[in-house]
């Protein structure tokens, strides 16, 4: 099991198996799987608009997957990307709506993005502090913080920021909008894909470099693999816990900025649409590896938008089942590969 080709064999087989299984599920619902497949491909990668939609979805997913993946290397399981996205989104919307219109976009966008990152990082740090101070398990605290974020953002929206008789906040200032690729260069016409994608890719690469090319990453990996040995080696576990959670939360904040500044232009109830939870699956699918995670986000973005496109053929619920089955198969395959190596 040492040859790279052999290593690739198991995941490839598992993807084939997933395709067959999904085809069987579609057949069982009385639809022709080939037609569905064709429709998915045509509506996503088959058109510039579809490709743009996939890239836009992948951007948010990549940010929220990184929010899970960064702490994962310290053996921290951040279930809270959803809540971090929500507080990030509300911070982006409120700050961007209250910026003076005279500001240039070069100042306005970074300020709004910074607000989103700070909110996400702050929210995630609460879980880190609870863990360091009171040894509260981060899975439990981040789940609770998700509920709290949901409640707080709902309260803020409906009691303070919603425009009368709407479910969204005031539109953000024009100077804080991130122009789409379509507006900028005419790429992927009328789709919301925007330069946030560059930031997401840069963040993945940066995270890779941090993890494998810096002393900070050396300490992070050591702490995650052997906490006791790391502590003896003078590595401060509390400092790393706090930093990793904050970095993860900041990444979720960037995902929120993509949604608010790059697409909607305001904060709306339910706008994160569970992207924080899909981020967990996206991260796990790539075994939290900072480079594979880009492929995994693209794949999940494709399924996400492809599912919408075939809604008339395959019910949304069935498509969810298919996605989950695929993820389970791929994760089992990687686990199998690791055991055999």
């Amino acid at each position, binding site marked *: 099991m040492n040859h790279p080709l052999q290593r690739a064999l198991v995941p490839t087989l598992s993807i084939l198996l997933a395709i067959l299984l999904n085809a069987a599920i579609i057949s069982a619902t009385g639809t022709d799987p080939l037609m569905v497949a064709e429709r998915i491909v045509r509506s996503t990668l088959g058109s510039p608009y579809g490709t743009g939609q996939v890239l836009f979805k992948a951007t948010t997913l990549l940010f929220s997957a990184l929010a899970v993946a960064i702490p994962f290397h310290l053996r921290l399981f951040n279930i809270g990307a959803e809540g971090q996205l929500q507080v990030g989104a509300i911070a982006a919307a409120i700050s961007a709506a209250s910026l003076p219109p005279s500001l240039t976009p070069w100042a306005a966008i970074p300020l709004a993005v910074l607000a989103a990152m700070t909110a996400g990082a702050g929210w995630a740090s609460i879980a880190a502090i609870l863990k360091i101070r009171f040894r509260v398990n981060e899975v439990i605290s981040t789940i609770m913080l998700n509920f709290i974020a949901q409640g707080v953002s709902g309260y803020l929206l409906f009691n303070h920021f919603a425009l009368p008789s709407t479910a969204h906040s005031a539109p953000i200032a024009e100077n804080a909008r991130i122009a789409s690729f379509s507006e900028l260069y005419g790429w992927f016409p009328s789709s919301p894909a925007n330069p946030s994608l560059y930031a997401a890719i840069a963040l993945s690469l940066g995270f890779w470099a941090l993890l494998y090319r810096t002393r900070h990453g050396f300490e992070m990996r*050591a702490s995650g693999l*052997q906490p006791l040995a790391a502590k003896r080696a*003078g590595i401060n576990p509390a400092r790393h816990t706090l930093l990793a959670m904050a970095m993860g939360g900041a990444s979720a904040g960037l995902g929120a900025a993509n949604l608010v500044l790059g697409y909607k232009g305001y904060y709306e109830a339910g706008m994160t649409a569970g992207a924080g939870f899909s981020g967990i699956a996206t991260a796990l699918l790539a075994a939290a590896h900072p480079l594979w995670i880009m492929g995994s986000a693209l794949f999940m973005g494709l399924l996400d938008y492809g599912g919408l496109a075939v809604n008339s053929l395959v019910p949304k619920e069935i498509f969810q089942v298919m996605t989950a089955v695929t993820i389970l198969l791929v994760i089992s395959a990687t686990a199998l590969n690791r055991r055999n190596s």
Partner: protein
Amino acid sequence: MAAAVKIQNITRKFGTLTAVRNVSLTIEKGTVHAIVGENGAGKSTLTNIISGMLPPTGGELIIRGKPVRFTSPKDAAEEGIGMVHQHFMLAGELRVAENIMLGYEECRLFSPLNRKAVNNRIRECAEKYSLALNPDARVSNLSVGEAQRVEIMKLLLRNASIMILDEPTAVLTPMESTKLFTTLRTLAENGHTVLFISHKLDEVLSFADTISVMRKGEIVCTMPAAGATKEQLAGRMVERGVLLSVDNPPATPGAERLRVSNLCLADTRGAQKLRNLSLSIKAGEIYGIAGVEGNGQSELLQALSGMLQGQKGIKGSIQLEGRSLLELSPRQITDCGVGAVPQNRHTEAVITSFSVTDNLIFGRHREPSLHRGAGFSHKALQQLESRLIPDYGVLCQNPAKQQLGALSGGNQQKVVVAREMTRPDLKLLILAQPTRGVDIGAIETIHRKIIEARSRGVAILLISAELEELITLSTRIGCIYNGAISHEFTAKECELKRLEGVAFQKEIGLYIT
């Protein structure tokens, strides 16, 4: 009658490396068979093949006349083969009896264990094979020796008739080792077959029936233990000559470096682990601590390394050149010039899935000379590895790529020792079982390095279960018993008594029990 184990032309490769080369060996039923050899000779690999942990690349394995092909330890267990690993696989929170029956409950799921019947069987077995054990004790409270007995008992109740032990005595005190061998002898007399690996030639000579010597993946000879000598074995194991005991020129101690005064420590349950422990170490001397494990050594080590920082229940003081260490973090303590080889390599000293080079800098990664930008300087790392790896005789193909976990046990230990002993500006060196699992040739090297460091003026605290090692190296020896130093041998006494050998060991023995 067919032999218990017959190996024919077994080979095992790891990539391009041949760890076991075309080995053939016969182990007779009812004998105690020992395997000795240098670190990395292939001993663990060979026993792992017999116990089904590793499949061989080629060759045949014949158990009691029957050719077998194991794909897992479970297959081997079905043929009555059991292995006691160096790292025990016990559930700490469960009781002894529960651990022994784990996975072998003989009753339906969810119905309670028949505790009485189980306890009776354990007592019966304990009596027959002199395996003193309390079935109701919690495993987390056991000593290493007791935990090992639990492992052996587990195998016995699963009807293992062929027992394999990989360096079983590396972690035992001499007394516990003797107990273990009494058990193994009784087992052999009752028709069991025992195969064990050891680096301690004395015990191999006195307890084994047959001895095989491995070198570079091959068995170079197999001989009856009766009539063999230590020098003869050492000669077959290593090509160059080995000094079995290094020279220890008189020390010239300088000013006081470390002072531990009236250190008291209670654990979380309130049990007193250290009781007014006091000692002092000067620059340029080796202070040896003799004692049976569990008398406060690990607590003293933890306090010295900053692992107890901020913990309640500590009284007294630890001072390094007048600076108090108790309030400092592990990092601040290393920054004061303290290096340490911890007791438990795997959990405290290394990251097994990191490369050998990464492990050579692990804990030293804050040294500015290794840095370049936010990362590490390749050149500095290369210099470090090309200095330390040959110097300490670490057997390893590609240190920058190879995982530490793929090194043999003794070679992993050498990596830790090399890293800690070569810290720049070393003031105090704490060595806990520094030669655990290391072969006789490498022990000589490490002992020489320890004396060298002492002569350079480093203060050294040495904790070892090997009285011989303590006597050879120590300038002074403190006997630890029940959380305090119960007796101290002065430098003069140590120098004189060193020549007495076994008599001195016996005298020390009086103070530690």
